[in-house]
Every structure is written in structure tokens, then in C-alpha cells.
């Protein structure tokens, strides 16, 4: 018996019970669609998170004042202390002490109200040095960025985010306009190119001023040298952990602290953010895929059930085929291929449903779903395997039937 004939016989059997076959395949179909969707959702979210974190600037370390591992009452909470200063940032720029640090961008930020003519807008005002633009991976759509000279001169200049410019002026062509912050009039010299928003902040809604201006005239405070965070860019992705070490050691030294557990600052990397986020989404994906896999097993049991019915129903046919000279292997293949066809059609229809939903759903749920070719091919293969695995028992029963008993059955 050739393959084509086995296939034809099995197909005829599936085809003669169209409704039953469809219902059987439905179990597998739902399982496969669920697997494709959950894997796609996991992948999509992962890509989304990675893209957002990439947008923050790669190879980046963030030094924040205070300790997140505070054990005594003396130190302030995370981000609240004023232990980080401009001097620290300058020291980090030393190629001798921190050879793997490419650039350093200290910043001082707070929420303040901006005024332009009749318009008011409250946003985050960030005092920075010229290196900020490169370190944060930003660019300008209008005008120019804060220069070293402007920073040294405590110049009254400001660079706006696109949304901030829109809110204040209704346009982004605002170079040369005046903005008032904390009673200080500043000239708009540039507008940042749009960078979208990440999960924690809107990157297009901010006002960037020289850090010297911020310290002396806008934000003020008791310690004008203190900064709210220092962004440290490593020379490359591979030197990120070296840069982390150098930063930590240098700052411990400068602050006269002996052990890193007593540090009055915290160094965190984008990597750690990425891996935390990724780990969370991976756990979620595994969980969802587990549920989807469960539904596949249920679908497989459906296939087994129907195959058992099919074998019982056709006991006489099996007996006749054996009497006419079908060896057990021919019977085995006939039913195995039948089970595989049920699995395969469930798999293909399930993949179609999964891909269709992946295209339609993001508009509804707002999360991207990435359909990966390996996931689709893999799940169709799994569907066929489900058919085969759950077909084995019924098929073995069919092949074992004694021809006389089978022929006598009614």
C-alpha cells in the first residue's frame, strides 16, 4: 500500500464524518491559536519593553543619591538625599579613574510651572550639562542645544520638548520665544525631537535648562551643587559592568565610605531594568503558554476519544481489510494518518485563527502581538504530534484486533 493510498483512505474516513472531524479538530485548533497568541503577546511585550528602554539610551548607568538598601535611620531614602554633587559627576569624567566611562551627564530636576504669554504649563524642568543630549540619545528638531559656554555663564536659555512647546505656543517653531520659569525669563534656543514616552515618564514633555542656571536661579535649594541623578554612559555594552564597578569605587572613595553596603548612592543599569522587566514578562508568558498547552492536551484527548470511536465503529471494516490481506502495519498507518490529519487540520486552522487574532487584537487590547514563524511552524508540528501521540492507543487497538472477531462484530 503506497503512501498516497494510505493518505487517501485516511482522508476519506475524515471526510465521511465531516462534522465529527471538525469538532475534533476544534479542540486542537483552540489550543494552537492560544499558544500562538500567548507566545506572540509575550514576544510583543518583550520587544516593546526593550524598545522603550533602548529609547532611554543604551549602555547607560544611573547613579541616584541615597541608598535603596538602607538599614539604619541616618541615611535618606532612595532618591531623596542630596549626597550626589556636581563634583562627583566631574570626577567620573576622569579617564584615569574611570576608563570605561565615555560620558557623564548630571541632572537636577523638579516639577515647575512654565509661563509663555497667557499660557501656563507644569512640567518637569531638568538642569543638564551639554553632554546630556548624547548620553540620553536625544536629538533636536529645532535650533541648538545648550552649549558649554551657556552652562558656564548660567545663561537664561531653555530647550523644550515637542509637547511642552505645543502646549505653550501651539507650535514647535518656537526658537527665539520667551518662557518664564520661577520668575526667571528664559529664551527658547531649541526644541527636542520627539522620542515618545516610556512607562514612567513622557519624554516629549520637559524643559531643559543649563544645570548652572537651574542651580542658581530656578530650582535653587540649600545645596546648589547637589544633583538629583547622574547618567553615566559606558564606552560600550560590554564595558557596562566595568563602568559600574569604576563608578561605585570612585564614588565610595570620594564619599569616604569603606564598604559598598554602606553606600549613600545607588547605581542601577538599563540592563537590570531590562532583565527585571523581561523576567516578569517571561514568567507571564510561561504561565499563559502553560494554560494554552493544557488546552492542547485536552484537544489531544478529544482526538483520542474520536479515534477510539472511529476504531470501534469500523471494527468490521478492519476485520474485512485484514481478511483481504492487510497486514497490521497497513491498519496502523491508516488510523495513524487519520489522527495526524485531524491534528494537522486543527493546527493549520488554529494557526490561521491565531495569526488573524494577532492582527486584529492589538487594536483592541493595546498590546502588540508578534507572530513568529518558528512559533507557528512549531505549533503546527505540535498539533500533528498531538494527533499522533493521542492516536497511538486507538491505533494499537485497531491493529491488534483479530480478523475473525472483527468480522463477526456488528
Amino acid at each position, binding site marked *: *500500500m*503506497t503512501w498516497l*493510498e494510505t493518505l487517501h483512505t485516511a482522508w*476519506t474516513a475524515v471526510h*465521511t464524518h465531516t462534522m465529527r472531524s471538525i469538532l475534533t479538530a476544534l479542540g486542537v485548533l483552540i489550543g494552537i491559536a492560544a499558544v500562538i497568541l500567548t507566545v506572540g503577546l509575550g514576544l510583543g511585550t518583550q520587544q516593546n519593553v526593550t524598545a522603550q528602554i533602548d529609547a532611554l539610551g543604551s549602555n547607560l548607568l544611573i547613579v541616584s543619591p541615597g541608598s535603596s538598601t538602607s538599614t539604619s535611620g541616618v541615611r535618606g531614602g532612595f532618591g531623596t538625599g542630596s549626597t550626589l554633587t556636581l563634583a562627583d559627576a566631574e570626577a567620573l569624567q576622569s579617564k584615569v579613574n574611570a576608563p570605561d566611562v565615555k560620558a557623564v551627564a548630571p541632572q537636577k530636576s523638579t516639577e515647575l510651572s512654565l509661563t509663555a504669554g497667557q499660557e501656563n504649563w507644569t512640567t518637569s524642568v531638568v538642569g543638564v550639562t551639554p553632554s546630556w543630549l548624547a548620553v540620553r540619545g536625544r536629538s533636536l528638531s529645532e535650533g541648538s542645544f545648550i552649549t558649554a559656554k551657556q552652562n558656564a555663564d548660567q545663561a537664561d536659555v531653555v530647550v523644550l520638548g515637542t509637547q511642552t512647546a505645543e502646549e505653550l505656543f501651539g507650535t514647535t517653531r518656537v526658537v527665539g520665544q520667551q518662557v518664564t520659569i520661577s520668575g526667571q525669563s528664559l529664551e527658547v534656543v531649541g526644541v527636542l525631537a520627539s522620542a515618545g514616552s516610556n512607562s514612567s515618564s513622557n519624554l516629549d514633555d520637559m524643559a531643559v535648562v543649563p544645570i548652572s542656571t537651574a542651580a542658581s536661579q530656578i530650582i535653587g535649594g540649600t545645596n546648589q551643587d547637589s544633583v538629583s541623578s547622574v547618567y553615566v554612559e559606558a564606552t560600550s555594552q560590554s564595558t557596562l559592568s566595568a563602568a559600574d564597578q569604576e563608578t561605585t569605587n570612585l564614588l565610595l572613595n570620594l564619599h569616604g565610605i569603606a564598604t559598598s553596603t554602606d553606600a549613600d548612592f545607588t547605581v542601577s543599569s538599563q540592563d537590570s531594568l531590562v532583565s527585571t522587566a523581561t523576567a516578569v514578562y517571561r514568567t507571564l508568558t510561561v504561565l499563559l503558554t502553560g494554560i494554552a498547552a493544557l488546552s492542547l492536551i485536552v484537544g489531544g484527548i478529544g482526538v483520542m476519544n474520536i479515534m477510539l470511536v472511529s476504531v470501534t465503529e469500523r471494527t*468490521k*471494516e478492519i476485520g*474485512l*481489510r*485484514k*481478511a*483481504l*490481506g*492487510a*497486514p*497490521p*502495519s*497497513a491498519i496502523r498507518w491508516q488510523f495513524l494518518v487519520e489522527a495526524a490529519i485531524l491534528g494537522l487540520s486543527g493546527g493549520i486552522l488554529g494557526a490561521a485563527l491565531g495569526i488573524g487574532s494577532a492582527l486584529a487584537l492589538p487594536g483592541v487590547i493595546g498590546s502588540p502581538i508578534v507572530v513568529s514563524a518558528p512559533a507557528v511552524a512549531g505549533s503546527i508540528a505540535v498539533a500533528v504530534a498531538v494527533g499522533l501521540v493521542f492516536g497511538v492507543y486507538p491505533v494499537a487497538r485497531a491493529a491488534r484486533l*483479530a*480478523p*475473525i472477531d472483527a*468480522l463477526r462484530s456488528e
Partner: protein
Amino acid sequence: MAEAQTPVAGAATSGDPVIELVDAGKTYRSGSLEFEALRGIDLRIEAGDYVAVVGPSGSGKSTIMNILGCLDVLSRGRYRLGGQDVEDLDEVELARIRNRRIGFVFQQFNLLPSLSALHNVELPMVYAGVARPERVRRAREALERVGLGERLRNRPGELSGGQQQRVAVARAIVTEPTIVLADEPTGNLDSVATRDILTLFDELHDAGRTIVLITHEADVAAHAERTIQVRDGRVLEADAADPMVGRAGAR
């Protein structure tokens, strides 16, 4: 014609029977219960024979049919089919023997309802690995032989009982088997169809086929050259008028 028949006659006289049962016994076990269906049967059937096995139900004639058809194996004794010992063959080899050497005709016709007459007749050749064009040609010939050349495409449900049984006969002879085994082939047919089928068997016999007919009807058995009476798992008596039996007994 005389020349053409010589090989058959020669085979018969050389003492090389197509079917030979020697002290054949079959015991069925069901838990602690034992049932002796065959209690030592000796049987010889020569090439070209037309033999009827008759007996009441429970006499063991169905068991003989199953043994002869290699659907079941003996508990003791010996069964030689066409010079080959059938004992100790595994399932695959038994399947091959059923495929090549035996053509079955059943009381229930046993055609596959989803297949056309032509495909039903093709089925044994599918398992024999005959290529499709050859299969179709031979199946068509066999159906023409039983007078159904016009009904190739019909499914069993579209045929009368007699026509279905003729399809079954076509299927039985299409592989040119050593013997045709018919188990109550007329049990489900009316008298007209019964006569039809029996005439067909007569023709097959005249053409030199070896036929074993299992029946409980005397008038059906009368068509055979020789009758073997079975009762309680034993051969009762042979038809003394039959010259074949005389020869077999003399040996």
C-alpha cells in the same frame, strides 16, 4: 482442451492436495471454560475441487472456514495450504497468505459502503502492492466476469443484494487465489439471487477454480461435487458417490 487440463489433473493425481488438514483440532478457551470446536479432522481438497462443508450451527463448520481462510490458527494438528505449512506463521505472513491465496465470499457481503464497486474489488490488490492501472484493469475484468461491467461506479448501497454478492465474488477471484472460500454466500439472498450466485460458482468451477462452500442448506450443497458433513467437531461421513473421496480414502 485435454492438453490444457492436464496440469490440473496431474496435480490431483500426484497426491499434492491444495488443502490438507491432518488431525486438526481447535480448542477455544474462555477463562476456565474450554470448548473443543474441532476434534481431530482429516481433510484433503485437490485443485479444481468444488467442496461443500455442511452441518448444523455449532457443528464446527465456521471454525473450519476460519482455519482454512487463515483467519484463525489450529490448536493442534497440521494445515498445509498449497504445499505450505501454515502453522507458526506470524500475523504479517498470514496476512500475505490471505491476500495471495484465498478469496473470501461472506454471508454479509462485507463490502466497504464508502467505496464504489470498482474500488471494493481493487482493495485486495492495494494490499498486494499492484500498481493502480493494472489494478483497475483487473478489477474491471473481474466485475465484467460476474456480469457487473455496467455498475463499476456504483456504491454497495446502490446495488441489490445479489449484485453486492457478485461484487464480493469479483473481489474474491480478482487476485487469482488458490481457493475461493464462501461462507453461507446465499444466506442473505432471495431464491433468484441465490440461483444467480450458485450458477456463478458453477462457472468458476468449470473454469478450474477450487471452491470451498460452507452452508447448512442441502440444495445449495448439492451444487458441489463433494459434500463433507461436519457434526460436533468431527467429519461424519463423506459422500461415497464422489470419486475424489474414494481416492483420498484409498491413500
